[in-house]
């Protein structure tokens, strides 16, 4: 601090000495130190913390931060084929406009009176998600799709009183890690093997593993590895036969063209809303949804807030409020269901804006468009000698596994070479799924033009040669 005199900071209005003085006087206290009387001296920090010197003007701060950020190269600047749980899609400007409005951005947890807008926007979000998912109950977003899946399983465990979940073997290892940690004391997580040809759940194994210990059978559509799990109806039927809950995680962007899991028997549907109008933000744009039928026993197991619609004393006025608040940890502390807290409400509002913009037709077109590009990309890559694509014989949506074993090169080597050509190759799966050899998970979306896909094919051909 080289400024003379005491620091008067723009963020701290009462840092003005005279104002401070006046307030102390009114309280009848001599020194701010007195307020800290309860903190024992031995716990008091002496002197200032050792922090970097601040940038007190915005221009200096901006120069510093933008200077750091300049070292990033973004997925806009490089041609990216990364997905694996975080997706590059068109983010409509209206989505940003709304979530940047101070009224939403800086609000928190007010009453439905002063925060009517938040309640209505989130009710509309859940309502639109309900249409997309063909389900009647949707939560106010939890943190992310990982959390949504983990909580869905625990809901199933509470619903059934059973200690085990059967999970498709193609689940991503990070998500599995989250689920394992989260369910540790509640249920055991067992992986159901997948068919190495199709990637689909091995129903024979499922039949062998399922029992009256099984709380839930869980799978994903599209799966983490990009193919469509087409046995949903059979898996759900099996689960139900054994009194288990069928939990399906789904990418909402696929639901304009792919059947919603409720249609093939899912009881709890979960997933991540990041693809719905939310920037990737280096993985900071996630929000989790959970949806069920409107059955009391399901509803009562949600830990999240659920916003319902209600009349007010003025006829025709929409009011909103918490449904079955007593479920929650806000009401019941440890007796509530799991917990509730700050999560991803702003992304829920944003996803609502996105769905309202897209409408039915938009969702159909984007789903179809992604599939078309995916199939084109697969076809182009399949022309390259030594490249096996898609590795799995099943329908695909958006992502697909490219096996490179026959090129004699590792994914890491190939990705390095692609990067040199301005391309982010697919996610390296070789550590996550060693059984797939040198494989990479490629992702294609509506952001890709034909020339991008051609460019990828040409570069990959060069690189594997």
């Amino acid at each position: 601090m080289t400024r003379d005199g005491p620091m008067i900071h723009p963020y701290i209005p009462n840092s003005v000495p005279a104002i401070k003085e006046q307030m102390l006087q009114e309280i009848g206290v001599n020194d701010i130190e007195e307020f800290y009387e309860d903190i024992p001296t031995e716990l008091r920090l002496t002197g200032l913390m050792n922090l970097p010197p601040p940038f007190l003007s915005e221009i200096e701060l901006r120069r510093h931060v933008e200077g750091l950020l300049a070292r990033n190269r973004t997925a806009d600047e490089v041609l990216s084929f990364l997905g694996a749980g975080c997706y590059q899609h068109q983010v409509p400007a209206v989505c940003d406009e709304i979530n940047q409005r101070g009224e939403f951005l800086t609000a928190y947890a007010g009453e439905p009176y002063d925060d009517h807008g938040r309640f209505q926007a989130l009710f509309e979000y859940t309502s639109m998600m309900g249409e997309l998912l063909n389900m009647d109950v949707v939560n106010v977003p939890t943190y992310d799709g990982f959390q949504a899946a983990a909580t869905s399983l625990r809901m199933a465990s509470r619903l059934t009183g059973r200690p085990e979940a059967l999970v498709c073997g193609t689940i991503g290892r990070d998500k599995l890690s989250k689920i394992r940690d989260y369910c540790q004391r509640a249920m055991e997580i067992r992986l159901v093997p997948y068919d190495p040809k199709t990637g689909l759940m091995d129903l024979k194994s499922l039949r062998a593993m399922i029992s009256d210990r099984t709380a839930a059978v869980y799978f994903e559509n599209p799966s983490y590895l990009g193919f469509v799990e087409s046995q949903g109806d059979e898996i759900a039927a099996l689960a139900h036969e054994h009194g288990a809950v069928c939990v399906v995680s789904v990418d909402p962007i696929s639901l304009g063209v792919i059947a919603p899991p409720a249609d093939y028997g899912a009881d709890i549907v979960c997933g991540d809303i990041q693809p719905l109008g939310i920037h990737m933000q280096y993985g900071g744009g996630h929000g989790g949804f959970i949806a069920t039928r409107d059955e009391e026993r399901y509803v009562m197991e949600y830990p999240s807030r659920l916003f319902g619609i209600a009349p007010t004393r003025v006829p025709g006025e929409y009011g909103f409020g918490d449904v079955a608040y007593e479920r929650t940890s806000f009401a019941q502390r440890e007796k509530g269901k799991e917990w509730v807290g700050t999560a991803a409400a702003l992304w829920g509002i944003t996803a609502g804006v996105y769905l309202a913009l897209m409408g039915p037709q938009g969702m159909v077109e984007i789903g179809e468009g992604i599939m078309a590009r995916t199939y084109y990309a697969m076809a182009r890559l399949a022309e390259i000698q030594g490249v096996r694509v898609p590795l799995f014989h099943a329908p695909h949506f958006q992502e697909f596994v490219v096996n490179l074993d026959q090129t004699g090169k590792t994914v890491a080597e190939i990705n390095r070479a692609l990067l040199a050509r301005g391309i982010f190759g697919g996610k390296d799966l070789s550590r996550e799924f060693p059984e797939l050899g040198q494989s990479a998970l490629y992702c294609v979306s509506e952001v890709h033009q034909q020339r991008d896909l051609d460019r990828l094919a040409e570069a990959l051909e060069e690189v594997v040669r």
Partner: protein
Amino acid sequence: MSEDILRHRYTDGRPNLRRFHQARWDEPIIFELSREGQRGILVPEVEPGIRERVGDVLGVLPEKMRRKKPPALPELAQPQVLRHYVRLSQENLGTDLNIDVGQGTCTMKYSPKINDQLARSPKVTELHPLQPEETVQGILEVMYRFEQILKEISGMDRFSLQPGAGSAAIYTNASIIRAYHRMRGEQDQRDEIITTIFSHPSNAACARTAGFKIITLYPDEDGYPDLEALKAVVSERTAGLMITNPEDTGIYNPRIAEFVRVVHDAGGLCAYDQANANGILGITRARDAGFDLCHFNLHKTFSTPHGCGGPGAGVVGATEELVRFLPVPLVEFDGQRYYLDYDRPDSIGKIRPFYGNVSVILKAYAWVMSLGAEGLRQVAEIAVLNNNYLLHKMLEIPGVSAPYARGKHRIEQVRYSWQGLTEETGVHSEQIGLRAADFGVHYWTSHHPWIVPEPCTLEPTESYTKDELDEYVAILAHVAEEARTDPEKVRTAPHNSTIHTIDHAPLDDPSRWAMTWRAYRRKVEGKGEA
């Protein structure tokens, strides 16, 4: 000469109450605005070259996996979508708008616009988390630098920036405590977590979710956490202590180090819920009181906006001994480059996808860098000054009290009680809050259970002026006076808000509740698809 307008705005030199009315747009539910065929945005078309090659690509889907009819989303053109949401936004009261001291414990401080602007840079928003590390050195450096800052502020040895908000961080702490005892082979034995009733409910709830039994301590007569009670409950079953300090009452536990010692002596770990460390930044540190774990809410203490309830970030700090358990990955620096370290076999694993709410982290970093050590200390001191000033003023309102620790000062917030007023007038805390809404401010009762009767919790932070604090008190004083002179007005409030008193009954009635428009339509009309 005209009469001076100002004359009517002040009485005895003090501003009269604000004649407020919130925006009221009476907006329909968005489905009501739908008209078939309208489009809000177009998606890029499939190019002919692609189309030729792939043909009817939906044909690859088995019939049963194809969606039969398009989702019944509303159909609106773009201006109407925008207008609808802009109107809704005006019906929402952010910190940018109101004297947001009424959501006590939530630390509704100023979120600087420059930080939002920086975090909106495509250099942040358009990064994919799996990009090669060499293309994300900038953002990794931000994360790394921010961790160093957090270490200094808390005294802890390492931080994970991963958890999505405060409760997720508390859960992470519980998971780490669990892992620690498992490593020591005591996982079955040590199944109790101790907390206090004035610690945030998530301490109890998250620990319970992690599988622990919860023991909740109640305060002593003076409102301080009860050391004797603690001593009575610790045992070889004690896994750990998870508490807030200062507690929701605003009271700092002066025997905090002893609490920690007692738990340590019993073989437990201690996790410090510092979601809200606003009043003690640069004053006292978690490590110095002996804690093994702590967390901060970046969306409270570190100024990032609350976003209607997220995204936030809860960063978890650990002592050297517990670092091994932190979630993967950690951000490392080898002197040349920043990288993500996944090679951490004892880690509890993943708490969320990737590395945390990175934009939030960037905002928090920028905030610290705009204040420095002196600035952070001033944040704490002024927040505490504001709080004690507010306390002083509040206690001048007949019917208000601040139970516990009488005559003492508080740190960052105060839990007040309107019991006196309720006894006198029959008007309840919640009603006072709804009437306060008529003057354009938030008001929050308190977390359950209401140990303090007819509670409300106010937390002024460092961001409000003396005049704003005076205005807030004047509003509550006015409402308290109304409770005496015109209680019906208070009971039927709000009058100047977007809507009027809600009939809450359907929200707890399974036959009537409706969490989606489709459910509502079905229930009230028997319409819609099941």
